[in-house]
């Protein structure tokens, strides 16, 4: 919405500096986005209003004329080429040295006078282009007849035009008058409403046209008036100026009046050529199936039965509240005008304009909800202007069909509620002042209640808290103190999954992984590359109807594509190690319900390990770096997990392990299959960790297993075992860790695996560091020997392992 400060001043006196005015409006009324100052560069000394008093031909040039202008400080003669120059016009007149826009180059320049074809010129009569108002340079700018000769043009025509975003519930702010009302309430300055008086002829409007509303649920009110003997022609300069300033093109006085009153009041109006209205009958009804209408913009449109059409005796002539039809348009030949000012149901207007893809100045206003009272207000305002500007005679009375009329609502607002909502009491005098200023009717109901009637142009006001908002914003939210919530705290709602997620996030960061956040929408081909072809669920992701781009058309069912893409993108400009992770959702479709948003950690590592400055070239990160990170996470969480060789789609067989904890399969650690990596443009070994947090949370211990550190020393012993190459090392460790003997607890780690020379074909050697610990004594050599013997026996039986060299 554009707001002209000059226009606004018709209704309320505003003397504030512009930034302060903008601040007031922002604080209390609507979002002022920016403003533009018109005439900021007009020198008040050198550019003034003048009147053309005489015109004579140029002695030496056919297309030039000599104009005599009254400048207020004497008459001057100027040479002028404008075709539209006429005696009696008020014009903008510049003298030597004025800063103008050059009419030919479009660049700023200083006016230098010199004789034109031998005739001296005392100044220049200006076009809109020269003043920087528009690109119009065909003729001179003609000022309103009311312009005062000799007055600086910046005072006469200078303006500030605000660009304002108004709220979706305030159609009244789509009219300049709405801001007048707001400012009057904010500053206390008196409101001057626009003149709405007019004479009426003896002819009754009701005898000239009949109006029927067949669908009162969509058309709440329909008013019609008739103006006879209208002379269609250009509207006056002041009106054209204002329309242009707010972005509307002047057409003729009849159309301009309807647009002017809409910009003024926020209420759209529509003028018909009365003689084109068939049967002198207007019907507002739902469109019939298949009905069509060619609207004013020349487009033939199909209507649907939920759209309200305005019809005459011959059929549809307009889509109610959106756009008229071409047939009954006002033209230069129009003698009698039928003026429609109606009120339509806002949801219906929005729906229809959405379906028709036709947003108009009218529909934008109606869809926000206009008070039905405004129809009558705008009628009389327009009729006043018709009488003044079109020479027409207004017939008697309005045809006013008002099925949606409801008694003016009353809202009871208690002082207690004001305080309950805002946290402060507003003095009763201020309540009355603010509400009266905004146009409410206000009655006191002792002891502390206000009975208020909202103004007719504010259908957004329905409940006491709506009124309290008006009070709060005008009284000033700066008067609210800052207080702290009081009272009982609600019970906590445990969320172990969230707790785990944040802990794992911290652990991953601590282990050197960089967190990334990728888009959750992806495209099918990418998913299909990373997802097991037999995984029907993940290959049938939920799609979106209107993606922002085709590569974001499906909700991801796997995070791997995004991680691989991110890895590849970073590898392009970064050497060395890459460790990336994201914790996010897989969106798994669920029949007839919202998808399962499954919390997953997905991580990738690869590249060379951090290089030491002392020269050693970094070796590559490998499977065991990835696995080590997983082990560290589970260790920190106090979960004992196990790994087993497995194979999965997209992961390299022989380099893939399932991670299991308790009964839960909690994730996978693997080398990404080189083919899959290559399809994401990764040409180096890259390792994947996926942890499934929803499964992990089920095996999370409530608290860590605690045992006091032993007072007795442990005994360490390194042994080498010989066993079948295919036997997993984990089996050896299981035996060690489960071995108990005579109160001695065993633990062990593998610190080397060796195959090759000295080891029989098909076998391997594992170096194991054993730790023996008793809770109640210092172990003797005999104790250790006894436990070791038992352990070796079990290792032989259960893992096929023998002591190497033993």
């Amino acid at each position, binding site marked *: 919405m554009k707001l002209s400060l000059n226009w606004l001043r018709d209704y309320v006196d505003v003397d504030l500096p512009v930034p302060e005015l903008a601040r007031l409006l*922002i*604080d*209390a*009324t*609507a979002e002022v986005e920016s403003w533009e100052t018109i005439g900021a560069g007009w020198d008040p000394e050198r550019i003034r209003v003048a009147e053309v008093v005489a015109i004579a031909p140029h002695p030496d040039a056919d297309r030039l004329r000599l104009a005599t202008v009254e400048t207020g400080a004497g008459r001057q003669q100027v040479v002028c080429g404008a075709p539209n120059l006429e005696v009696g016009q008020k014009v903008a007149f510049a003298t030597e040295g004025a800063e103008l826009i050059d009419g030919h180059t479009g660049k700023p320049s200083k006016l230098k006078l010199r004789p034109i074809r031998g005739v001296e010129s005392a100044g220049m009569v200006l076009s809109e282009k020269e003043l920087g108002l528009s690109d119009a340079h065909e003729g001179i700018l003609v000022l309103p007849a009311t312009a005062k000769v000799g007055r600086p043009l910046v005072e006469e025509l200078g303006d500030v035009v605000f660009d304002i975003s108004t*709220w*979706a*519930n305030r159609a009244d702010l789509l009219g300049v008058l709405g801001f007048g009302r707001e400012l009057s309430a904010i500053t206390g300055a008196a409101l001057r409403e626009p003149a709405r008086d007019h004479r009426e002829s003896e002819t009754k409007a009701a005898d000239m046209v009949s109006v029927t509303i067949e669908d009162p649920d969509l058309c709440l009110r329909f008013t019609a008036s008739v103006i006879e003997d209208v002379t269609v022609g250009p509207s006056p300069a002041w009106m054209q100026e204002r329309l242009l300033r707010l972005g509307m093109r002047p057409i003729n006085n009849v159309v301009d009046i309807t647009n002017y009153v809409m910009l003024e009041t926020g209420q759209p109006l529509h003028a018909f050529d009365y003689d084109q209205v068939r049967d002198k009958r207007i019907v507002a009804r739902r469109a019939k199936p298949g009905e069509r209408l060619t609207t004013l913009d020349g487009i033939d449109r199909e209507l649907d039965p939920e759209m309200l059409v305005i019809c005459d005796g011959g059929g549809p002539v307009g889509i109610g509240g959106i756009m008229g039809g071409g047939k009954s348009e006002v033209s230069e030949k129009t003698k009698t005008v039928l003026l429609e000012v109606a009120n339509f149901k806002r*949801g219906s207007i*929005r729906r229809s304009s959405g379906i028709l893809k036709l947003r108009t100045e009218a529909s934008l206003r109606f*869809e926000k909800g206009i008070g039905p009272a405004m129809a009558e207000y705008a009628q009389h305002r327009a009729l006043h202007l018709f009488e003044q500007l079109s020479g027409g005679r207004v017939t008697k009375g309005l045809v006013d069909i008002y099925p949606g009329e409801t008694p003016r609502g009353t809202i009871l607002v208690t002082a207690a509620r004001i305080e*309950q909502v805002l*946290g402060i009491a507003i003095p009763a005098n201020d309540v009355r002042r603010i509400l009266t200023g905004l146009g409410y009717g206000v009655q006191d109901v002792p002891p502390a209640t206000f009975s208020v009637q909202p103004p007719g142009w504010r259908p957004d006001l329905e*409940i006491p*808290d709506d009124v*309290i*908002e008006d009070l709060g*914003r005008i009284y000033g*939210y700066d008067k*609210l*103190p*800052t*207080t*702290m*919530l*009081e*009272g*009982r*705290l*609600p019970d906590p*709602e445990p969320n172990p999954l969230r707790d785990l997620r944040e802990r794992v*996030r911290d652990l*991953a*960061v601590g*282990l*050197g992984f*960089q*967190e*990334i*956040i990728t*888009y*959750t929408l992806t495209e099918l081909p990418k998913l299909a590359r990373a997802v097991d072809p037999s995984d029907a669920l993940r290959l049938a992701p*939920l*799609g979106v*109807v*209107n993606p*922002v781009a085709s590569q*974001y058309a499906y909700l991801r069912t796997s995070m791997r594509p995004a991680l691989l893409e991110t890895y590849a*993108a*970073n590898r392009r*400009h970064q050497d060395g190690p890459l*460790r*990336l992770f994201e914790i996010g959702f897989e*969106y798994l479709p669920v029949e*007839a319900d*919202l998808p399962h*948003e499954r919390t997953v950690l997905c991580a990738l590592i690869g590249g060379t390990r*951090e290089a*030491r*400055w002392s020269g050693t070239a970094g070796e590559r990160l490998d499977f065991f770096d990835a696995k080590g990170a997983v082990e560290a996470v589970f260790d920190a969480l106090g979960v004992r997990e196990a790994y087993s060789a497995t194979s999965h789609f997209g992961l390299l067989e022989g380099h893939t392990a399932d991670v299991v904890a308790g009964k839960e399969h909690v994730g996978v650690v693997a080398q990404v299959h080189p083919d899959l990596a290559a399809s994401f443009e990764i040409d180096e070994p890259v390792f994947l960790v996926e942890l499934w947090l929803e499964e992990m949370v089920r095996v999370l211990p409530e608290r860590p297993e605690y045992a006091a550190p032993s007072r007795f020393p442990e005994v360490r012993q390194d042994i080498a075992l010989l066993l079948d190459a295919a036997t997993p090392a984990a089996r050896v460790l299981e035996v060690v860790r489960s071995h108990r003997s005579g109160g001695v607890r065993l633990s062990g780690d593998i610190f080397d695996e060796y195959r090759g020379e000295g080891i029989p074909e098909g076998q391997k050697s594992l170096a194991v560091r054993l730790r023996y610990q008793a809770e109640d004594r210092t172990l003797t050599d005999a104790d250790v020997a006894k436990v070791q013997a038992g352990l070796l026996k079990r290792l032989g039986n259960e893992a096929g392992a023998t002591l190497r060299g033993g």
Partner: protein
Amino acid sequence: MGELAPDNWHLVAGGWWPTASPTALSLTSGPLYTQDSMIDSALIPPGLEAEALGALASAADEAAIEAWRVQWLGRQDGRLTALLRSVKEQPVESRAAFGAAANELKRKLESALADRNEAIRKEALRELSTSAALDVTLPGRPQAIGRLHPVTQTMRDIVKAFEEMGFRVAEGPEVEWDRYNFDAARIPEDHPARDMWDTIWVNTLIDGKRSMLLRTHTTPNQIRVMERTPEPPIRVIVPGKCYRQEATDATHEWMLTQIEALAVGEGVRMSDLKGVLYGMARKLFGNDRKIIFHHSYFPFVEPGVEMAMDCFICRGSGSDCRTCHGTGWIEILGAGMVHPEIIDKAGYDSSKHTGFALGIGVERVALLRWGIEDIRHFYQNDLRFLAQF
């Protein structure tokens, strides 16, 4: 750990100590030996002490010193050990004096050995600080360090600020029913307020009428929290991803992160909203922050406001400030008092229970606090960007 130690260090008694290099063995302390009158030269072979001390003085390195120790003080056949053993062969009358003299000589040699070792250790340390001094400006060995995404960091900071004020966290689905996202939040179809949220719709329609969408704000989860809370009080923040069907530019991103707060209960006032926001602004942007409210409109609140805070960069003084565009104020978030209709629909009594709600864009806060110029950096995941936070 072991591999980190340079080769000329070795582990001694739980700490890292230097060993001397062979060239470092010159004596710098005072005279090592003097003739001591307490030794009876009649009983102990004359010159023995001088010989021992002389040999020690000329032992040039650790090995030589050790050889000297074995030669003189060795338990098996050190010369002084032998001397002490020979006490039995001495005449009875001089045995005591011989023993005393031999012991005295042993003590002297031991002391000289300790002095010699100490001198060598000191010399080695001096070496370490001088010729073996490090160029401490050489880079350290790189350690792997990960970082949280700046959006996560900002999210956590905001969450923490609210948790300290008694709010707890509730999360809800990103893929939502349109009823929760819009209708229950007083944004019916055909209401122009829907223009405020351009929606990405999911292509599934359940029972021909229930549509799914990607939530445009976290408000639907406020509704869910109220649904499952039979009775106020409620003090909750609802964080999470949201989606908008809009073109991206430096300040717009179609995937975004929001945190909304909701407090419902008896006596919840707009001034409390102001207090909570004041607390949050100070936590995130510094204790000297000021905040103001101005009028705004959201269908689910009444009254509705927008909060602005004074510019923490120019503090209101910079007409060309890039952060506040010279206005001195930065728009941070939208908020308001929960519409009574929503309170009543939740099964509460709006005449008794009031509430406030607010919504913050996490990316916006992150952009502001770090002076990031383009929101699109966040989800491009370029490590050159991410590694800076």
